[in-house]
């Protein structure tokens, strides 16, 4: 227990002193998580809406594929992308391997099924009369989708939270695609794993606390936003 207590003491000292390395890693993690969440939700939410509201050939298969992708192991996604982005891979020319962009690509692939599958379920939960009402009052496709989304705002906020939670806490793809390079691709999760392995519990705990704080701030922010919307 002593080493844990010591770890917390060190963590507090690092955080209060504004340790450059800790904040650098936190900022990079935040940047990757925000960019990946925005891309995954930007594509995944409209995709979920289409899966929930349009009847087309192969819709059931698409839903099954998206739901199956929810359970993709992160290291497998990392491995596949590693093959694609490595120098000999088809996307090797991009030169993204071991960059933060590669981690973003991996995170997007992991968060996209969450955004699509959960938003499809959220939209399916909205009373179908809402969509018909918007349409019969003259709303076009986008405004109809927006009206339905407003009705499902609580569920959709939870979808965004879940997607963000996935990317901010992910380690497999970040380790394989980013390489855990200090000052370049070291994220909170990869750093925690590394410093724990090196026996630097204080730094690991400090980074772990920052990770929890980020998750807490995002959740509270979304809850506040939800609370502003009445009936």
């Amino acid at each position: 227990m002593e080493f844990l207590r010591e770890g917390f003491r060190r963590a507090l000292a690092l955080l209060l002193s504004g340790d450059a390395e800790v904040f650098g890693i936190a900022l990079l993690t935040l940047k990757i998580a925000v960019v990946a969440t925005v891309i995954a939700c930007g594509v995944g939410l409209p995709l979920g809406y289409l899966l929930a509201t349009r009847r087309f050939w192969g819709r059931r298969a698409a839903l099954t594929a998206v739901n199956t992708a929810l359970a993709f192991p992160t290291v497998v996604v990392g491995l596949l992308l590693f093959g694609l982005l490595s120098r000999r891979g088809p996307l090797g020319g991009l030169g993204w391997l071991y960059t933060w962009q590669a981690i973003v690509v991996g995170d997007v692939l992991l968060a996209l099924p969450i955004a699509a599958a959960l938003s499809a379920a959220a939209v399916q939960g909205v009373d179908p009369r809402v969509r018909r009402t918007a349409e019969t009052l003259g709303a076009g496709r986008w405004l109809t989708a927006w009206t339905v989304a407003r009705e499902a705002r609580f569920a959709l906020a939870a979808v965004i939270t879940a997607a963000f939670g996935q990317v901010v806490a992910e380690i497999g793809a970040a380790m394989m695609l980013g390489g855990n390079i200090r000052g370049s691709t070291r994220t909170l999760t990869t750093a925690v794993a590394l410093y724990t392995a090196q026996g630097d519990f204080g730094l690991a705990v400090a980074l772990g606390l920052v990770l929890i704080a980020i998750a807490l701030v995002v959740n509270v922010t979304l809850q506040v936003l939800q609370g502003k919307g009445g009936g």
Partner: protein
Amino acid sequence: MVELRGVRHRYDGRLVLDLEQFAVPAGAMLAVVGHNGAGKSTLLRLLALLEAPTEGSVVWDGAPVPRRAPTALRRRVTLVEQRPVLLRGTVLENIGFGLRVRGIGRADAYKRTAEVAEQLGLLSLLERRRTELSDGEVQRVAVARALAVRPDVLLLDEPTSSADRAAAGAMYRALSHERAGRKARPLTICIASHQLEDAYRWADDIRALADGRLSPVTPENLFRVELAPAGTDTMSARVGAIDILVTTDRAGPAVLAVPPGDIFVSREPLSSSARNVLKGRVTRVAAHRGGGVAVTADVGVELIAIVTAEACRELALAPDAPVVFSFKASAVRVF
């Protein structure tokens, strides 16, 4: 104006609407009557261009409508569902929704919103949200919301099902006011109802739907039944608390129609060949659009008979008076 041609509409393979032709002329005040499940709501959704028919086409001003109706065309018709939902926001925002969608300025939108809100007695509710309204108020807001956008065709599905008499009266007055105010573009209204009383009071054209098809007979006294053998050449159908005898070789599920003009009305049971003799009390006496007097009586089920004004006077038919309705088994239409 809007017409269904050769429409067969299915849900999960089940045929719910089968109409060779159904036209709604411009400026008409049309009522579609029928039981729950007769296909009225589906019909209105097709007319509202919210769904495309499985087979057949919707024709608007002579031109077939594509499966995904253009927004500009959809904006000419508005549907108020039987159990409407209000969107997130206040009553004011709900009534103004269609106006905002059409890009109408804030001041003009507010003016129009206040106008329809006043017609429907909603001015005091403008700042309320959906959770603070009764079912009847929600229904009135939905009608106001639909009227606000000045559609060419207004479709109303059981618009007074949650309204009391006063609110229903206010709603019909608002509709009349709106129709009267239209000069260049007449307002066409199509109401689906299972209440014949409403239909007769407001519509100038009444059509009956039964099991997704247009009924070949007048819409009064329509019943969905299960036919069971009752004699050598008759079948019996349980309707409400009574059994109606009919001559048909059909059995199982069917729709019965008792033509109101074929019902003999008397104070005492008649000695006649009529196999159906039903005692009850008069519930309503009203002038019939097609001439004569419509006498509604509760004889175990509500039936309407048409008699002459003279017969009505002679028999002293008035609400609560005892009455006997008699009709032959062969007079009952089965389809």
